[in-house]
């Protein structure tokens, strides 16, 4: 592990993203997403209750928090897959509250899913082609006449092959996506998302269930996205990776933003240690939850 942790330190971080003192809801120099008073309730459970949050542009932001903190719900709200009870949020300055998911994707905000959604009985190449935007051949009437869309389709295929090569999936282009391993599907989903030339890439637990070697290459791909000028927002549990690649970390707990800031600052925040990292590592878990009376007392 020593060599890999040395490598981990070598990533250059972007700093100076915020304006004023670091606190939950701090203003950013150049926010791509701003969220105001977004509230989502499932029955009696408040899943998301974010007062104000800004996601900085052009950098990698990690969204962390304990299970049930509302990370995926917030993701679903931002991407139009779920509707909040109240609240407003903007993308690139446009108000996008209530805009359906497919329109947000067309605006340049693309997401992946925690449970990978590779389209099993489509080939890897077809999966990739599906990611491209503004396809003439996807309109019903023009789809009947190949001469209208063939040229564009070939260009899309060429672009797809370029991306597949980068993600080392080019040899599998004619295989069904269902035949890929779990990790390869994660790669495919990410590559497919990139086919639309997004401005903002939202990754929901990109590393879950991926072996260490593949994790390293996934991390490199995420860092590449930043290098190419894209904004990345991702949900992750592994603090090691978060501190490795994220420029900014937002911590959710019980639906609220409890802390945010550069990774090294956030990790030392007592609220974060309390809510997520855990201050009771040395105490019996039963005692922490209060279900089992402490033996020593």
């Amino acid at each position, binding site marked *: 592990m020593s060599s890999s942790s040395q490598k981990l330190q070598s990533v250059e971080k972007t700093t100076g993203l915020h304006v004023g003192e670091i606190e939950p809801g701090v203003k950013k120099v150049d926010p791509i997403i701003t969220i105001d008073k977004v509230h989502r309730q499932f029955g009696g459970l408040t899943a998301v209750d974010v007062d104000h949050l800004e996601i900085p542009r052009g950098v990698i932001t990690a969204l962390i928090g304990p299970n049930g903190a509302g990370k995926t719900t917030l993701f679903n709200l931002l991407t139009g897959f779920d509707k909040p009870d109240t609240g407003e949020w903007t993308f690139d300055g446009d108000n996008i509250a209530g805009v*359906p998911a*497919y329109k947000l994707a067309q605006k340049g905000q693309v997401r992946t899913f925690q449970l990978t*959604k590779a389209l099993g009985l489509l080939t890897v190449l077809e999966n990739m082609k599906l990611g491209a935007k503004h396809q003439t051949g996807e309109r*019903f009437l023009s789809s009947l006449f190949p001469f209208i869309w063939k040229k564009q389709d070939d260009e899309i295929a060429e672009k797809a092959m370029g991306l597949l090569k980068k993600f080392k999936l080019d040899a599998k282009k004619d295989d069904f996506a*269902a035949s890929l391993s779990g990790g390869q599907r994660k790669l495919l989903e990410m590559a497919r998302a990139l*086919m639309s030339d997004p401005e903002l890439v939202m990754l929901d637990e990109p590393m879950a269930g991926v072996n260490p070697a593949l994790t390293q290459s996934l991390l490199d791909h995420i860092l590449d996205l930043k290098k190419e000028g894209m904004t990345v927002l991702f949900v992750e549990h592994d603090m090691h990776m978060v501190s490795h690649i994220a420029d900014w970390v937002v911590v959710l707990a019980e639906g609220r933003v409890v802390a945010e800031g550069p990774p090294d600052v956030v990790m030392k925040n007592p609220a974060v240690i309390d809510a997520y990292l855990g201050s009771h590592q040395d105490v019996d878990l039963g005692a922490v939850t209060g279900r089992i009376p402490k033996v020593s007392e």
Partner: protein
Amino acid sequence: MDWGSILSNTAQQLLSPATMAFALAALGLAIHFGFAGLLNMGIAGFMAVGAYGYAISILTFGFPWWAAALVGIFASVILAIIMGIPTLRLRGDYLAIVTIAGAEILRLLFLTTANQEITGSADGLFGYHASFRAANPFPEGTYGFGPWTYNEVEFWVLILGLILLGLAVLFVWRLINSPWGRVIKGIREDEDAVRALGKNVFSYKMQALIIGGVIAAIGGIVYALPSAVNPNVYVTSLTFFVWTALLLGGAATVFGPLLGAIIFWVLQAFLSNVLPALVSSGIMPFVTATQAATLRYVLVGVGLVLLVVFRPQGILGDKRELTFVK
């Protein structure tokens, strides 16, 4: 046993209007289920609006046959929209429930005596052939050879049916092998993933429902062209027979529905001829001749079960699809 007549009757079925109608209906269902993943259990309803739209337009409103056919097609578009708007936003199973109910409601509307003037109630509709036969380009006479010998009217139905079937197959083949087809196949696999890639999933599902419904309605019209329209035809078991034909040939293929419909009807014709013959010649003494004729439906059911268990992708389906059961 008269093998000559058994085989001749069987061979006739190969090019019968029923076979072509089933092939068209199964092709429409292939768009719905095989490519877009829409579980339409009311394909009989789409065939019924096609057939009734055609017959009512001629009998009640005096339309020429081609305009009547367009009315039948238009009616299926309306039916698809009515069924789709409330259900396409829901999970697939709900569409199955709504479509099966929708088809039954339609059948009962056609059956009820309240509309007898227009729909003919239980007697159905007949005697609407004048305009169609007047348009027959073939002069009086006999056409074809062997078991496939037709008079000029039957031949006109056959040729028109084949042309429509050919056009429908070409149309679907083009559609499926285009980026449009890629999107609806993606929706079949996982509609949220396709939504996340910026496609208007609801619109694509609606388009698929309409296109498949129109092709099924054309099937209904071809079914009605030579004979009559009877509400007892458009029952739920018709839906299941079309499903059988589709699954037999391969749900996610273009030529599968065609092959499935042919096999289904040729086999039906063969069994309905050979089973009673077996009884009368004393080979199957344990059933009566009438029972033997119905036995074919039992065999079709058994065949469908075996097919779904052992070859779920159908005869023409991609073998690789078997490997990845979701």
